């Protein structure tokens, strides 16, 4: 079954699925970071040009740090995301889902050099497109993965009707499908809603499509805890 997540089993035996970020987002994030770096470079360049050769020396040191540790700094102190990654809603974590470690972050960012070969990131881009978890060489070496930041789930209103318990005990998948139905009922056409609830006809024990839909809504309300 094809899916867009990377599954990690934690010691407690629970499986976490991390939504893997696509190469295109990462390229966009990289572009944003490049612009941010350029702006920083222009600013410090202008400031230190006031100090003559000594300023040039300091500028060279800062340029080195910016070039090599910009990403490490933000990954360590900004929840695994450089400004570009933050803007794209993605972040770096270790393969096992834990926050990215110092060693891993340094390795993956030092290897940007290898990814940039032979000049415009051919190796990194090719590797990213061909790897199943969209890792570039740095990620492969450091054992890190770039994933989507989980968005805060906002409560979606389910139309309130009198709650009713389902006649059949439901598995967790089925419960969440019924809840989803309640939440998304407004985005679906009426015919489509009827089509969906008709599938469940033997469970609902109602004679018309209208009643069936209401029954499913009532179950959704019941599952939401409005008993």
């Amino acid at each position, binding site marked *: 079954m094809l899916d867009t997540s990377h599954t990690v089993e934690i010691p407690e035996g629970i499986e976490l699925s991390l939504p893997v970020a696509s190469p295109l*987002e990462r390229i966009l994030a990289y572009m944003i970071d490049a612009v941010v770096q350029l702006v920083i470079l222009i600013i410090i360049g202008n400031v230190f040009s006031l100090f003559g050769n000594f300023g040039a020396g300091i500028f060279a040191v800062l340029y080195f740090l910016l070039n090599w540790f910009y990403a490490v700094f933000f990954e360590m102190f900004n929840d695994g995301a450089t400004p570009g990654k933050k803007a794209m809603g993605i972040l770096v974590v270790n393969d096992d889902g834990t926050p990215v470690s110092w060693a891993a972050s340094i390795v993956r960012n030092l290897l940007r050099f290898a990814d940039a070969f032979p000049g*415009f990131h051919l190796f990194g*881009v090719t590797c990213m497109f061909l790897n199943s978890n969209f890792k570039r060489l740095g990620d492969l070496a450091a054992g890190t993965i770039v994933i989507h930041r989980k968005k805060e789930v906002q409560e979606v209103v389910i139309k309130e009707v009198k709650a009713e318990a389902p006649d059949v005990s439901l598995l967790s998948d089925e419960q969440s499908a019924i809840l*989803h*139905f309640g939440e998304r009922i407004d985005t679906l056409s009426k015919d489509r809603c009827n089509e969906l609830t008709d599938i469940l006809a033997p469970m609902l024990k109602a004679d018309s499509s209208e009643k069936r839909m209401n029954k499913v809504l009532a179950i959704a309300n019941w599952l939401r805890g409005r008993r």
Partner: protein
Amino acid sequence: MKLESMTAKVRPRSGWEALALGFRMAHHHWRSLWGIWFAVTLIPVLLPLIFFPEYGFWIIVGFWWLKPLWERPLLHFTSRALFGEYPSIKDTLKSLPGYFFVQWFPTLTYRRLGFTRSMDAAVIQLEGLSGQRRSRRIQTLHMQASGAGSWLTLLLFFLHFVVYFNLVLMVIWFVPEHYLEWLLKQLGNKLALESDGIFTLVRELIWTDTVMAVQVSQVLIHYLVISFISPFYVTGGFALYINQRTILEAWDIELTFKQLRQRIDEKEKKRKKSALIASCCLALVLSVGIAPGDSLAEEPEVEKVSIEHEQAKQTIEEIIESEAFNKTVTKKRHFFDFDVEEDKEIADLSGFSGFGKSLAFIFEILLWCGAFGLIVWLIVKFSESKYLSSSFKRGKKKKAKPDVLFGLEINEESLPDSPADEAWTLWQQGECRAAMSLLYRATLFQLIESHHCEFEDGYTELECVRIVDSVVDKNVASFFSELTQSWRVFAYAHQPPGNSLMQSLCLRWNGMFLTPEPQEAS
């Protein structure tokens, strides 16, 4: 369309996540996708290139312009693969006439440069819609998350040139130097000949047409780059389309509802079946009038289990002896010596001047101060450190003596003047525990005080014995170990030592530890 046979996890995703799904589809079916691609496109590119190599630029532009058509077989395959049907390359090519030229005119003219082409292709090719219905359908599909579709087109177009320039760079690296010089010279001649130098230079960077070999290799590189990117473009766009439909038509809900329905139906069937069996049994019992014997029913089952056991054992042995468990792998590793010559450059400091120079001077002084400060701090820190002081001043100062060992108080105040006599008296009075503990405590105290045994708070009795063995003479050590043994037996096993043993211990204590005391007193 059967949702049950879908080979990808159905759930509403964000646009970017849908793209990731599309790219994974491309990974999953890479053989077929690239196989179909090359089967369809190799001839249309190579034939004109062989016959008209001087028109290389127009060949590749033409090929690129016709890309929507080349992508159709890929979409055809991907859409079928998603629903578990994997047409072979041959089948895909056979069905090519059915969809290859559908709405070819608008596709290749006014819709060619649309940003969401990858998503919209499915509406034309798979849904077969045209005219107003098509545009209305596309409008519906674009309501959410069509941004990702535009980004897909834009970024992959950008990537085309990134990868192209990389490959050109690599080719240039591998071109022999004198030939490269010759090429540059040709270019220079051309630039000198033509009046608008800059325009020519820019044009030459994008497309060099001075030498035939360069032209042909440029066409091939562009073709390879398009070949690399196109399947990702198709699957990405198709995944976006599928995602939009999943959101709009609640495919995920339909799928789960169908599974639930199946579960209910099966349950119902089972219930009916068991009811039927029950009624049959009842009828059987009533008609025969005898209940079926339990033992008869059970016997064959036991046999079956034992056979299975035998079989299982055999299977296990077979598996263990099989190849997978007896594989030997020899791995070789190569280590490289890197002889790196180090170039040392001496920094030129003469250029410092004015404000910068003075600032640099201040910084230098600060640095030196910092360095000295660090050294001083380190010296102070180390001279204070526990480990060093203990090794420097061993013998001068004793370690802090413990006041309490395994819950027993050990200091001078808690002990009488002649503890052995006192202990013996207590023993005779029947207070065995008090006597024993007093004797033991007194011994420990003497060992710490006059034999400088270094006990620490957390030591156990036997650890103390080991230390005593290594520090004091044999006589005292044997006494202490004997005492410890009786103490442990008494304290933990509640077996008091015999009268004679206790008496001898007390006497020996007096002989060993009491003698120096009068000397100290005098």
